[in-house]
């Protein structure tokens, strides 16, 4: 028994050795590659490829087609005088909203939400940002989260009936998702009351 095991071991080791010598296998490089990409600082040369996509690619057409929209739907959060906690930065917030929509449009919902959180750090009292975040959570099927975020948006939109109407619309969608038909109807009523229809 013991003999056989020794023989086996010798054979195994020898064959490993020989095979190793005979054919330098490229496999280990691949395996290691996974472990070697650790530096979060990317090389400038790699970046050079990424920049045009971000800066020129879709960006210009995107912002032009988006001009009306930012005037319309975002205005709710920006026309009011600045609330507490807000430290200016309208342009910053608009650029982050655009980035968030871009991320959302390519299915990167979590990134879109993270970008909205960046915007919220700049304008924490902007109800539009809370509303957008609620919308993303609703799209992701996180109804409880969407619910809380919509309520927060509502609490901050006290002086903006038009925006409140839109938030009630969102609440109606959430209620429908929750299977709360009664709640959905009530929210729709509130929404139309506020929109003045």
């Amino acid at each position, binding site marked *: 028994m013991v003999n056989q095991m020794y023989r086996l071991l010798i054979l195994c080791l020898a064959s490993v050795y020989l095979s190793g010598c005979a054919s330098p296998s490229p496999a280990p490089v691949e395996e290691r590659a996974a472990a070697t990409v650790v530096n979060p600082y990317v090389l400038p040369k790699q*970046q050079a490829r990424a920049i045009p996509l971000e800066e020129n690619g879709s960006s210009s057409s995107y912002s032009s087609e988006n001009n009306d929209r930012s005037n319309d739907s975002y205005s709710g959060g920006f026309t009011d005088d600045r609330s507490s906690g807000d*430290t200016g*930065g309208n342009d910053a917030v608009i650029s982050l909203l655009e980035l968030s929509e871009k991320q959302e449009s390519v299915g990167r919902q979590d990134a879109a939400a993270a970008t909205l959180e960046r915007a919220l750090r700049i304008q924490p009292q902007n109800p539009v940002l809370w509303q957008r975040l609620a919308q993303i959570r609703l799209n992701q099927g996180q109804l409880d989260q969407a619910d809380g975020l919509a309520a927060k948006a509502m609490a901050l939109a006290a002086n903006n009936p038009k925006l409140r109407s839109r938030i009630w619309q969102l609440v109606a969608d959430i209620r429908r998702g929750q299977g709360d038909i009664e709640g959905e109807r009530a929210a729709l009523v509130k929404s139309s009351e506020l929109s003045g229809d």
Partner: protein
Amino acid sequence: MPVSRKTSRKGSRSKKRPVNWKLRLVLIFGSVPLLYLGYLYFLIVHNFEGRRWALPASVYARPLELYEGMTLHPRQLINELERLGYRYTVSPDQPGSYGRQDDVFYLTTRPFIFWDSTEPSRQYRVTYSGGVIREIIILSSNKRPGVLRLDPVLIGKIFPAHHEDRILVKIDEVPERLIQALITSEDRAFYDHHGIDIRAIFRALMVNIKAGETLQGGSTLTQQLVKNYFLTSDRTLWRKANEAIMAIMLELKYDKGEILESYINEIYLGQDGKRAIHGFGLASQFYFNKPLSELRLPEIATLVSLVRGASYYDPRRHPERTLARRNLILNLLAQLGKIDKRYAETAKVSPLGVVPKYDGLVIDAPAFMDLVKRQLRRDYHPEDLSSEGLRIFTTFDPYIQKVTEASLAGRISQLEKDFASVPKNLEGAAIVTDSNNGEVLAVVGGRNPKFAGFNRALDAVRQVGSTIKPAVYLTALSMPEKYNLGTILEDSPLTYQTHDGEWKPRNYDDKFHGNVPLYQALIHSYNVPTARMALDIGVEEVIKMIRQLGIRRALTIYPSIVLGATPLSPIEVAQMYQTMASGGFYMPLRSIRAVLDVNGEPLSRYPLSVERVADPSATYLLNWTLQKAVSEGTGSVLYNQIPDELQVAGKTGTTDDLRDSWFAGFTGNYLAVVWLGMDDNSPANLTGATGALRVWGDIIGKLDAVPLVLERPAEIENIIVDNDTGLPADDSCFSTSVLPFIKAYIPEEQAPCAGGVRGNVIKKIMDWFK
């Protein structure tokens, strides 16, 4: 049984012996070398590829985001850039460099992979005016970026047991100059030999014999790499022979690029306490506080010097040795024509430029790291944390941490000096969060913030006193049919029979104040009317509210809990106030934003989440009152320290025998909780206002706090009430106040004075003067 087996075996063996004996001998002697080679092969291949480098997790601070309109003192921007190791220069065109001309900053950022998107390296112009960022321009396109997100400061690492630390780099990320210098200095025949370099060994031997000591080593880079895998000081010939064999094996199996990459990541280049610095990627950060790609020629030569002996050539302890070795390498490079001679001369006169140890590399904030680790331990295995190279993005703000540490330590020393009654060894803790989203910005666990022991911010569980009262009042205000801000509460002797005796709450000033409006009772923190109201509502209801505000600890149902006779930790108090600050929405305090794996792929996100737990209108009424508690009540001395425009909402807390001093409060952007007391729970002889409140003022006074402007819900209306009855009044009443009410619950009954005789009399008097 075993005996019989043995004999039977022996029997069978003895039969075959004549045949097998020779064969066995041949086999054994013939296979031993082969076996041994196989063993060596197994060892080296296993080390080269089988072993994954255990990579510590890196913990990052929040990235600083700049935007137009942002208030950020230029000094703070410079601090951040310095922590990041950005180089100050007249031509800041390389990643990680900046320059300044008065109000205008020029900087070239480093590219960085975040959890949500990748920030490319860009050149920016940032223009200030009056402490506010007025304009940010991307120089290449002349466009405004909206937001400029810098790379985040590394604040700590979570190490594996052996404390090997490294930052892995890929061979194509390594500057060509480094490879040149390394090969020139260590192994000029690297690209030609097959693992060992006989001529180099011979040359080294001659030099060493001539000199009578070991001056040169003839080891190739491959041999050095092998040696590094099995770090032993043992220098026997046997060892050397083994290394040589393994070096040849490596060369047979892998190409030069792979071996070089492994070498660059493996080689030992320094020591930092227990932490072993491995590889050029980390050495670059450790000695120069910048990534490898940003190193200049003299810095590269310095790092290559260390290969010969990281301790002997330690540039911090023996700069003259390092300098000599560096210049030798620069000369060699010039001699071999790898670099221009004049270039070498310039490089030789430049200083070593090594940064002081710790400076900017790792920020020592053990209390915050403790919080991060506790949160991570819930979601990750300890081994993964210390070996998988995770990148943990936290909410930590280095500047606020520094301010909070200094404020706590400074004020405690001051209090000990100012008041003879304050005992020595007074301790404290502080937490600062973003009042709008629950992100924890700073945690200080004691007056010595570098001490990684008892973390009072998380673990000092102490009686909270009146800091609990907002929860009681929020419970009441959430019953608008029964309570509003004007509701008259009775402040007169109260005895409550509990199952183990009588409870007789007393006011802090030991007086009774008769009938007091609800909001006044909170502003002045009267205990008796608070207790009476809480007993009316029911202690269980109050406890339910405390839980909704975010306290997860088991609470005993006992009447005195409504006056804060319950122990909580500072972070729990912060959580409770966070829910109030966000207008009745529970937001879990978070210290981590995201965790990425070694390849930059997101593993987990800790997103902003909110849950409505209290009526926003009731919370508005509460916060309105807490603003008054600071401007007119127990917290009014705060405005000796900071401007009253900040309209802070806050509450003091003092416990029996002055054992604990608390202050919890928030502005429009920051929430902070401070606790002071003695570790052995003996009296600290401080009230909330004489102790913790001052630390709080010190902290907030140094931050860019913005006023708390409460967003008035649509359901709220301000009305005039009669101070005696709390009922709606008009100008015929003498003593009135304007208080916010929930519209639907404004009492229908008018105050007796309203529209009454007194009003008419006044009207007549006024008429006479006309």
